[in-house]
């Protein structure tokens, strides 16, 4: 069976690899000239944190999110299983209790427990929550690894190829264009992020800093880099980050540790997350076109599950017309 996938963001790449693994001949078309350009997933935090995300998301994301950790670990390098550490500034310490009430699997830590996990944060927080089974990865390295895997499985990738699903060849066409698909009810939730670089502080796992106005996370990456994200703004605007958002992200990093004040800001970008009204992804089939969209802030967490459902629809092992992931 020949399959054309449109869109090389995380949804498209994971779907393409999943189909290639099931023996399909896959061709992937990406409008941009290189991997990650204009893809929301290139700017992602790369947190595989189903329990933390379920604090504000539908609980149905937990099971596929947990399975996603193994999916990624089997296919891309450096999936770090260090868990997630949730912290709150001292004056908002009650936020940790609230977070614990609304989530599962979090282990309450006192100040010493926080220090044992992250020595560089010693003395800065009176307590926190550890979600030990969660993981994180570097989204860019992961997407590059998936592209290599797809090629190794016999798939081809065409960059700079802007085609519409209706015009595409192949037995089945997978529409993974995200916002560009302009699907009914699909909206964009803008997110702004930055990357900091410093050798003055080391972290082993993503830190979520609970703040009533501006919850943010800091994800450690290789070579002293830290991804700080991300805003959530109901907006279709595609321009660069606003000064307000930049200040908020910087303040959050500084609140986590003053050493970030001396960090180099190596990148500051804004992206648009595709989302449906319930903020859950949808996998649908109409004729020979299967659409995967609405991954919202859960691209890495839910794309393996969406891809499996899309592959079922594409290869005919499911008769359902629509599957809400």
């Amino acid at each position: 069976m020949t399959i054309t996938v449109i869109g090389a963001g995380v949804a498209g790449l994971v779907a393409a690899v999943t189909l290639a693994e099931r023996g399909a001949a896959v061709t992937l078309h990406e409008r941009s000239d290189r991997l990650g350009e204009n893809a929301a997933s290139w700017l992602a935090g790369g947190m595989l944190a189903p329990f933390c995300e379920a604090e504000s998301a539908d609980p149905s994301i937990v099971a596929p999110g947990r399975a996603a950790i193994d999916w990624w670990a089997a296919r891309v390098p450096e999936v770090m299983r260090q868990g997630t550490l949730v912290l709150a500034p001292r004056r908002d310490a009650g936020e940790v209790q609230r977070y614990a009430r609304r989530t599962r699997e979090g282990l309450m830590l006192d100040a010493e427990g926080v220090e044992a996990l992250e020595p560089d944060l010693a003395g800065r927080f009176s307590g926190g929550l550890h979600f030990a089974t969660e993981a994180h990865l570097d989204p860019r390295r992961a997407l590059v690894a998936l592209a290599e895997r797809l090629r190794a499985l016999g798939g081809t990738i065409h960059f700079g190829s802007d085609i519409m699903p209706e015009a595409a060849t192949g037995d089945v066409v997978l529409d993974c264009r995200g916002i560009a698909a302009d699907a009914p009810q699909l909206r964009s939730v803008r997110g702004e992020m930055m990357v900091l670089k410093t050798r003055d502080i080391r972290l082993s796992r993503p830190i979520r800093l609970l703040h009533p106005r501006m919850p943010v996370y800091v994800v450690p990456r290789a070579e002293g880099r830290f991804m700080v994200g991300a805003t959530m703004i109901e907006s279709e605007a595609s321009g660069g980050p606003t000064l307000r958002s930049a200040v908020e992200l910087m303040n959050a990093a500084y609140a986590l540790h003053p050493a970030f004040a001396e960090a180099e800001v190596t990148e500051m970008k804004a992206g648009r997350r595709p989302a449906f009204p319930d903020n859950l992804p949808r996998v649908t089939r109409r004729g020979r076109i299967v659409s995967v969209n609405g991954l919202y802030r859960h691209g890495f967490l839910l794309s393996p599950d969406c891809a499996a459902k899309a592959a079922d629809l594409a290869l005919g092992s499911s008769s359902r017309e629509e599957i809400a992931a």
Partner: protein
Amino acid sequence: MRIYDETLKSRLMLGTARYPSPQILKQAILASGAEIVTVSLRREAAGERAGQKFWDLIRETGVKVLPNTAGCHSVREAVTTAQMAREVFRTNLVKLEVIGDADTLQPDLFGLVEATRILTEDGFQVLAYTTEDLVAADRLVEAGCRVLMPWGSPIGSARGLNNVYGLRAMRARFPDLTLLVDAGIGVPSHAAQAMELGYDGVLLSSAVALAGNPVTMARGFRLAVEAGRLAFEADPLQPRDMAEASTPVLGQALLGGAVFA
């Protein structure tokens, strides 16, 4: 409840930010019975009409949209935002916020009065987010404002009514003006208390949006606002120091202890 030319059945207004999803926001609006919801143009726009799809989802519920100038820290910013909002939402109503302090988010009353004057002269119908300060309230009314919205406590603090005395004094000073408590409401009993003081309504946002179950909490607030209003209309008892039996005790056999009539 009267908001300028509009008469509303519901005395509850809801904010629309920070819900888990637009779908849950919609369900919460329906459960609350609110007929007006506030929308922040500032953050959701970032460019003109950039939040259109989100606003369309809100409009699907059939409620009226009240644009606000949340997060504006200067008169000019607030006035510009209000003017943009009028273009986008085609309404003269605006909830005017001019923030004066970054930590408490309390209103800059001087800027608020000035912005109210500018906007009223420009044909706006201003709902002013203010404190319980009576002098500021007088100035706002002079500037043309007909709906005052004093805070219960700082925005998002969930502390309830910090200054009941001040809110009661404000109600007494402006018996005919539409007054709503805005900000600081955390649980339905806070809303009921505001209604028992004779306030025309309450506006709240994070109390519902950030609750573990926003839809259930929205229903809780709907009932509390109704209950508080009914209590106000029914002329409630005043607290007293001594017990007063609800059943006459005269003629009953009493052992030990005196009976005071």
